[in-house]
């Protein structure tokens, strides 16, 4: 992504303010995912796992929902410090200003296309702001972790699962 210096600074300042605001919003720490967060994560999973997920349809929606459940379980098992940071990130992304300014996604998450979300992820992945790069890493790890933790995803990668029958 080519970003002008002015845009870079603007994003940095706006992002800092949004993060501070989001931190205040999420000061309570660990909590269940909100409906807005689930929609946001479903959109992210749609892009991150594109190709691993079946094409659009009921089965895809079911698997995305299962993955979002898995992400929620993973977050609940993290340290309070990590939960707080992830809460701040999610709180930021579900707000329309955060989604638009930092992620560059103009439409609400449930309407965003795989292409739009992929562009956003790619821009964070190679961002000059370490904060956004680190956030991309967290979203990447949470989504792929939740996906490949499930035994029903193993056949596609020819992993037979742990040995059985000897115990």
């Amino acid at each position, binding site marked *: 992504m080519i970003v002008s210096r002015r845009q870079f600074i603007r994003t940095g300042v706006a992002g800092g303010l949004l993060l501070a605001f989001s931190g205040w919003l999420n000061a309570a720490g*660990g909590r269940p995912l909100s409906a807005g967060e689930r929609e946001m994560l479903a959109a992210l999973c749609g*892009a*991150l*796992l*594109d*190709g*691993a997920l079946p094409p659009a349809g009921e089965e895809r929606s079911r698997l995305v929902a299962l993955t979002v459940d898995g992400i929620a379980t*993973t977050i*609940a*098992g*993290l*340290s*309070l*410090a*990590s*939960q*707080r940071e992830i809460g701040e990130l999610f709180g930021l992304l579900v707000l329309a200003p955060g989604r638009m300014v930092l992620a560059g996604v103009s439409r609400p998450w449930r309407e965003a296309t*795989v292409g739009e979300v*992929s562009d956003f*992820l790619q821009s964070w*992945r*190679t961002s000059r702001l*370490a904060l956004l*790069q*680190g956030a991309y*890493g*967290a979203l*990447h*790890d949470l*989504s*792929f*972790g939740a*996906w*490949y*933790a*499930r035994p029903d*995803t*193993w056949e*596609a*990668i*020819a*992993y037979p699962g*742990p*040995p059985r029958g*000897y*115990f």
Partner: protein
Amino acid sequence: MHDPIRAGLAAGWKHIDASTLGKGQTVEADVVIVGTGAGGGVTADILSDAGLRVILVEEGPLRSSTDFRMRESDAYPELYQDSAARKTADKAINILQGRCVGGSTTVNWTSSFRTPPEVLAYWQRHFGLRQLSVESLSSWFAVMEHKLWVRPWETPPNQNNKVLAAGAEKLGIPIGAIKRNVKGCWNLGYCGMGCPTNAKQSMLVTTIPAALNRGATLYTRLRAERLRFSGGRISALDCQALRPDGIHPSGKRVQLRARHFVVAAGAIGSPALLLRSGVPDPHRLLGKRTFLHPVVISSALMPERVDAYAGAPQTLYSDFFLQQAAIDGPLGFKLETPPLHPVLYATTLQGFGAAHVALMREFTRVNVILALLRDGFHPESQGGQVRLGRDGLPLLDYPLGDVIWEAARRALLAMAEIQFAAGARAVTPVHETAPLYSSWAQAKKGIAELPLKPLLCRIVSAHVMGGCGMADTPQRGVVDHRGRHFWLVNLSVHDGSLFPTSLGANPQLSIYGLVARNAALLAAELSGRPPPLIP
């Protein structure tokens, strides 16, 4: 499968899961040991054998072979710090560290190396540790190797290790065999999720059961919060009980009183506990010089199945690239292989969408080699720093400077060359902008130009060391060669945080040997018996 932990509990071991405490308590013993990993386990064994009353404090849960189902989804949240996603403050380094009874020894890959002679020589020269030499430590290593079944591994290496050997041999790079601390290993390959057959001779099945059999008390889900001291002596350790989730404090408090306190909470936890406690640190050394053996990763697609999830994960290594320059010159690196399991591999692998899927489809044909950079010797490799974040929980800053990246580039080149020499169809460094290279010539050119920066190039670590370094004087160390704190007479540090540099080798056996020596000296002092005859 016989579960020695469940059997011990049924026979009356004193284990208190602090998440079940209805109210706070104050308990007294001869020695309180914080942490149950390599350092805490060995210390508990030796002190309890000397007749001392010992209390062990563990923040994680007590889990055993019955619980070890070889599933990443169970193992990471149950057995690792931050569900195996612990990170440096800038998120650029992912750290694998145990958080359960047995600590990292419960989940490590069993690789056992004595402290390299050149490292001990460096410690003598630069930190005045003349008491620690190959000769003076050899008996302690021998004792622990015997006790923990550290032996040459006779079973043929798995295919992942064979790729490393095949490529290295073609290039004339010497390969060595790794000794492993296993007894009757089934060669399953799931060491990182807790050994399901109790073959791995971790602290969980050796020293800790020995101490519990002698009447030691084990607290789990209990977080050591603060040491109380006055007049140069520690009087008590204040602890917070955690809820059954192992994350939230329950509000119940436990105070432990003792004659002596041993801190063995790992090289992030130990300095953090001492920082929280505000122990004297006039030379501002505490938490500094924290080393990680930063690891860079090279992934290869092989023509045949590799099945890197199966079989003992680390059985071959090469120290060739540690020996190409002086120890304090450009950073050397050790080559080893990791086990690959779906979550570990998928989260480590760069990219997303179609590109990620394409690489994951090759999962069974992937070979991965790791390069562990030997940090802490070069004048510009001073390691990281543990500091306290909100709530007093530790944060680790680890600057990734030019000397690290220069070595990372050499390591990525060396690994790719080895993988192509072994017949790889394609190789990719684990890096956000690296493509899949289809020949060594292409990789050589591509890696030479790859931008190496934090969060672009994936760096991981499984070896946290330093932060309470040993030295001969308080001007250059937190503790002396015995692990005794310079300012508080009844405080010892017994874990990897003692090391004044990294090691250039997997640290478990270095911790076992050094701590066995120091625990034996401490046991003699506290029990009034003559010191051990081993030098």
